[in-house]
């Protein structure tokens, strides 16, 4: 299992149609996973959902409960690794920010049982607030990083990654991107799952206690281990340099970008291509490519991580480098086969020869402009957030400059018309803390609106700050009893929100619960108005089950 051999896709394999997320999850189960941890976030959610539904996982009782947030999830997975078992933790890219303290320091403690930290990036921001590239985190923490280019590799990399993690005794990052996470293909899978590891403790117990004296020793080792990690990358079955007939250009293609490059050359690529799917970068292979070709194009999904390293601060690589920083490829948004083809044609104009016929619709372009209009997402009909916003916007009309601090979830859609109800959206939990800062600055009314799952993810700690100062602000927890935007996963605070607030010290006289229904809009509005006038902290829990999960529950019943 732990050898650097390409996986054998022989007849004993079972073909399955899997999303990239699912392939990775099944690969992990089949490689002897003992526990999966996660907080839902597009495009990573399907990883844990797959483990929750998988018969082998259920039979073995593998851990697959949602965690309160990404930081708790990483720590739980590391605890399992400490005990010698194979664990994985999955999140979306911005979730890794929440988990960064745990992740970066887990490179210092190292892993005992194999541990995969899966971070799914969302270039083009289909369902996210930024385009950050998780590979920076792997480099920063100094862990290896795997970046599958297709579903089969996602599957194979689970077993390989566990092996790598156990060889190097360090957590291994797996970086996914939307177009792999949410794309299906056939995958050759093992018919049976390997046995789980038995309980065993770290051979280097000092390293797990990150006191300065221990950390200084460990940090030197971690730096020294970079050489081993790089050697693994050079020998990796997922990194390979293929020869070409034309050395005027060489291409470095990482992860899913490799597919777009290959799509441009159905008859085979004439240029040497270095496929990168494992980091740290294999310097030896890159040197070989640079020695061979006149110029090097870098195609990578996300931010120009490889390209910046090759260019260096002074932009003096030994061969000209083409990529996102010189405009060959777009600097923002995800790559497409079109943008990669365009870049190749810019670099090698002769590739345009034999160019294609105009697409069928090319004569219609002018007409299309006003015939195709944006269709933004919207809150569902029958959603309780709608009624909360109806009441809130009505209450706000009584004030000259009310401010509402929003958060991450379906209710962020309250920014759009007809509600236009929120002023900010930053990160998970920021509604409460930004409302507090604004109230500290003298803003009145200062209102936070946050969902139930986001509240237990990162809102509770901020609420304690407001409790301790009895900050004059109003927190509305719009509780739909689920994690709605990602498709209705269990919410960790369901049934406990009022107790949590009271436990944190919210004044019972200013903690209210109300149903969020069309018929209670007036009542909600009055409640909001009276609490805005309270010169201290108020919390209002407005509750109604998500219409999507309610329909599912009705069907089951």
């Amino acid at each position: 299992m732990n050898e650097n051999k390409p996986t054998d896709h022989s007849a004993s394999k079972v073909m399955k149609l899997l999303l990239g997320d699912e392939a990775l999850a099944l690969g992990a189960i089949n490689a002897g996973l003992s526990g999966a941890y996660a907080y839902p976030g597009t495009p990573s959610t399907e990883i844990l959902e797959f483990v929750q539904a998988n018969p082998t996982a259920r039979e073995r009782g593998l851990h697959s409960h949602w965690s309160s947030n990404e930081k708790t999830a990483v720590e739980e997975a590391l605890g399992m690794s400490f005990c010698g078992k194979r664990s994985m933790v999955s999140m979306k890219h911005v979730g890794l920010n929440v988990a960064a303290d745990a992740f970066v320091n887990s490179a210092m403690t190292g892993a005992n049982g194999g541990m995969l930290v899966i971070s799914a990036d969302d270039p083009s921001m289909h369902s996210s607030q930024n385009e950050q590239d998780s590979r920076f985190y792997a480099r920063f923490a100094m862990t290896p990083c795997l970046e599958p280019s297709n579903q089969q590799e996602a599957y194979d990399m689970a077993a390989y990654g566990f092996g790598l993690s156990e060889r190097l005794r360090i957590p291994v990052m797996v970086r996914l991107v939307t177009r792999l996470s949410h794309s299906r293909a056939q995958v050759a899978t093992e018919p049976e799952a390997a046995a789980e590891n038995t309980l065993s403790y770290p051979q280097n117990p000092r390293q797990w206690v990150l006191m300065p004296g221990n950390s200084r020793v460990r940090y030197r080792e971690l730096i020294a281990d970079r050489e081993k990690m790089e050697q693994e990358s050079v020998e990796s079955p997922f990194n390979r340099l293929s020869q070409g007939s034309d050395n005027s250009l060489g291409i470095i293609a990482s992860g899913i970008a490799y597919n777009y490059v290959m799509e441009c050359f159905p008859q085979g690529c004439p240029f040497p291509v270095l496929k990168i799917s494992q980091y740290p970068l294999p310097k030896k292979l890159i040197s070989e490519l640079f020695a061979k070709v006149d110029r090097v194009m870098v195609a990578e999904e996300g931010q120009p991580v490889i390209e910046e390293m090759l260019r260096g601060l002074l932009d003096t690589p030994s061969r000209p480098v083409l990529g996102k920083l010189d405009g060959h490829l777009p600097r923002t948004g995800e790559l497409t086969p079109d943008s990669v083809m365009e870049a190749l044609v810019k670099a090698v104009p002769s590739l345009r020869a034999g160019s294609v016929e105009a697409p069928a619709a090319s004569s219609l372009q002018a007409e299309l402009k006003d015939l195709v209009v944006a269709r933004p997402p919207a809150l569902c009909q029958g959603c309780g957030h709608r009624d909360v916003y109806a009441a809130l916007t009505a209450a706000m009309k009584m004030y000259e400059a009310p401010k509402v601090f929003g958060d991450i979830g379906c209710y962020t859609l309250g920014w759009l018309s007809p509600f236009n109800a929120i002023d900010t959206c930053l990160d998970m939990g920021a509604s409460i803390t930004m409302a507090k800062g604004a109230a500290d600055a003298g803003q009145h009314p200062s209102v936070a609106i946050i969902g139930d799952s986001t509240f237990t993810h990162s809102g509770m700690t901020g609420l304690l700050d407001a409790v301790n100062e009895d900050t004059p602000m109003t927190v509305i927890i719009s509780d739909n009893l689920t994690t709605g935007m990602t498709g209705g996963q269990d919410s960790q605070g369901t049934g406990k929100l009022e107790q949590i607030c009271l436990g944190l010290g919210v004044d019972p006289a200013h903690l209210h619960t109300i149903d969020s229904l069309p018929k209670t809009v007036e009542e909600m509005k009055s409640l909001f108005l009276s609490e805005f006038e309270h010169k201290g902290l108020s919390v209002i829990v407005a509750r109604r089950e998500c219409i999507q999960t309610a329909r599912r529950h009705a069907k089951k019943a």
Partner: protein
Amino acid sequence: MKCDIILAGVGGQGILSIATILGAAALRENLHLKQAEVHGMSQRGGDVMSCLRLSSDPIASDLIPTGKADLIVALEPMEALRHIGWLSPAGRVVTSTVPFVNIPTYPDTARILDTLGKLPNVTAFDMEQVAKEKATLRASNMVLLGAASPYIDLSPEKIEAGIQAVFGPKGEKMVETNIAAFRAGRETALSL
């Protein structure tokens, strides 16, 4: 064999089940397949699109290059137009003519249908009507699949087996209704 299909619609209309059924059918035929879709925010009533690629040879990209799609299959006419840049010169559009109006700025439907009509290969009809007559309104997506099926290199029996596989767990009645809708869509398309 190679068939690149753009599936388009509005979140919640059921275009992803079309992809799942064709996927199940393609797997039985030992075809290569890639199907990219977007989950999350856009599923809340926004426009959704999925790239479905079937081929007897290995497929590189999960996304279809623009101007290369053999078929645009849409449950909504404006959504068919939104992705028209993907259509290859010989490609075909199969779409329902019923607009899904959930925005105040929805353009004039007659102009949308008129523009679609200027394309060389178009199959367009009221799929909700056919679904209501021959099955149930909720099976409109299977009428669409049926209407697209003559232009996909998979036998209708194989696609029906895919419907069986996907709806089987929900009961035999569900399977029958969806197969009826599929057949009605196919017949209507072939009779146009």
